[in-house]
């Protein structure tokens, strides 16, 4: 569910800061392994994710099919592994779009201050009052269901969360002595912004992007689940939860359980890692 992760980030960050290093290490390893899985998943899947085998449909876990088969006889383990890539590609693009847009907007408005900053701030507040999942769903209505419609929509919807966090830090950096001395040395605003301001806000950008990845993954899977994102028979975790619906009603829970658990574990790993990184990146207290 799309919880505004900017606000949550602030608080979880302090909450988890008390747990110290183990949380950072465990979440970093988990997030790293899951990302690795998303890259190599389709290659290490024991079966083709689309190979149906009606004779061995709806089976429980066995030596041939480690996590059982779905109602069409497809290997659930293979579909989960192959689906990891699309499940990660969506939120990765969402985070990329929102990070570039949000950071650029934040640094630009912090640099100019005054009415530019006020307008940007007002614009961000309006953006906050738009329900993300609705925008994603409408985007699919306008541009057609698939990968790009929800990704572009969510990328824009997630922008203000990134912008707000970066903006407050960028305003602080703007008034540091080094900026003034670079200006006195007649360095151009562009160069100061790109070469000096941006690197200095990078830690909080990375932390916030990590945090946003979890929410983005959940939202993207939700859009695919209701049939407006990735389309079956393509393997993706949201699609798998949707495929598992009819099996679930007949009491066969494996497919829903496997895909749902992967989604939850991934979101937790990135949430905790994002909170850990935020606590160490000198962002807003």
């Amino acid at each position, binding site marked *: 569910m799309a919880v*505004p992760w900017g606000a949550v980030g602030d608080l979880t960050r302090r909450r988890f800061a008390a747990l110290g290093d183990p949380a950072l290490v465990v979440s970093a390893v988990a997030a790293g392994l899951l990302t690795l899985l998303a890259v190599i998943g389709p290659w290490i899947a024991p079966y083709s994710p689309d190979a149906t085998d009606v004779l061995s449909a709806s089976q429980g876990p066995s030596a041939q099919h480690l996590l059982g088969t779905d109602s069409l006889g497809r290997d659930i383990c293979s579909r989960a592994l192959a689906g990891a890539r699309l499940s990660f590609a969506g939120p990765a693009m969402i985070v990329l779009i929102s990070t570039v847009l949000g950071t650029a907007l934040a640094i630009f408005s912090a640099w100019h201050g005054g009415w530019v900053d006020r307008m940007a701030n007002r614009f961000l507040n309006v953006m906050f009052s738009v329900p993300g999942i609705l925008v994603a*769903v*409408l985007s699919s*209505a306008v541009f057609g269901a698939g990968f790009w419609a929800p990704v572009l929509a969510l990328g824009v919807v997630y922008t203000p969360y990134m912008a707000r966090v970066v903006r407050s830090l960028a305003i602080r950096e703007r008034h540091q002595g080094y900026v003034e001395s670079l200006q006195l040395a007649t360095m151009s605003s562009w160069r100061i912004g790109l070469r000096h301001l941006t690197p200095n806000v990078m830690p909080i950008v990375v932390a916030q992007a990590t945090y946003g990845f979890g929410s983005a993954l*959940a939202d993207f899977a939700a859009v695919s689940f209701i049939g407006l994102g990735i389309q079956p028979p393509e393997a993706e975790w949201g699609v798998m939860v949707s495929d598992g619906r009819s099996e679930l009603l007949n009491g066969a829970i494996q497919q829903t359980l496997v895909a*749902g658990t992967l989604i939850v574990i991934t979101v937790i790993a990135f*949430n905790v890692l994002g909170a850990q990184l935020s606590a160490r990146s000198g962002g807003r207290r």
Partner: protein
Amino acid sequence: MTDPEPRSGLARRVVSTITGAVATILAASFVIFAGLSAAPGDPVAQILGAKATDQARAAMRRRLGLDDPFLERYWHWLTGAVHGDFGVSLTSRQAVTDLVVPRLATTFLLVVMAALLVVVVGIGVGVIGGVSTRGRAVVSTLVGLGIAVPGFVAANALIGVFAVRLGWFPTYGSGDGLIDRIWHLTLPAIALSIGYGAYVSQLTSTAVAEESEKEYVVTAHGRGVPASVVLRHHTLRNAAMPVLTASGLAVAGLVAGTVIVEQIFAVDGVGALLIRSISSKDYPVVTAVSLIIVTVFVVVTTAIDLVQVALDPRERAKS
């Protein structure tokens, strides 16, 4: 400003908040209308079918006003919408208002049930986590889990356990009569409330924990004031503001969340109507439902803003 009293600051704040909300809704209405006008699909073909004569098609285009300039169509639609007329559904040929209004009651009941869960359970758990040092670890683990479970995953888990395995609740439908409806909407309301409930718990427990470390609270304990009195009269009162804001945002989020949860439980509300209308390219219905959801969302967030201004004098100074 002719009135130098602080009251003028309040009035200005209230006016600017409400103006901002109306502007947001108008901007949203324009974006939604423009976007969906550009969406693929031909409404005339949808109504008349592929075999209609050119003459009939031209007549229908005129009747729907499709040949008018874009801004004129938008204005026509907007003035209609303000009067509760959202046009006619392309698939069922019914007035959009007649499709939407009966479903609003179902969605309203679902949101109210979920909001009660968010507020009662969310704040309750949050207070426990904020006050008791032993409870804090448990609460923060539960909260972390709750925030990480997407509504649609929670919904399927609830169906698997409580509807299919245990058979306590129906797997789908909205029910008839109030009691039956509440019974049908229990699992959807729980699924809808988990994420936002966890969010409210988290903010509550942080606010309460921060407040109870403050000197005046420590002093009150030191003076021998009973712990329950300190909690009720000092800690909770001063921690109330962020909790109120979080709860309001959560309720606004619940409205948008119905779009997904209603679909899963086949609850016949406006959220499910929206998804169905998108699939059948019934854009007049999509436009109307989207505008209603955005409006409710903006009205709720604006209301929280105003309540904050009313309760906290410091808020009045901000413009």
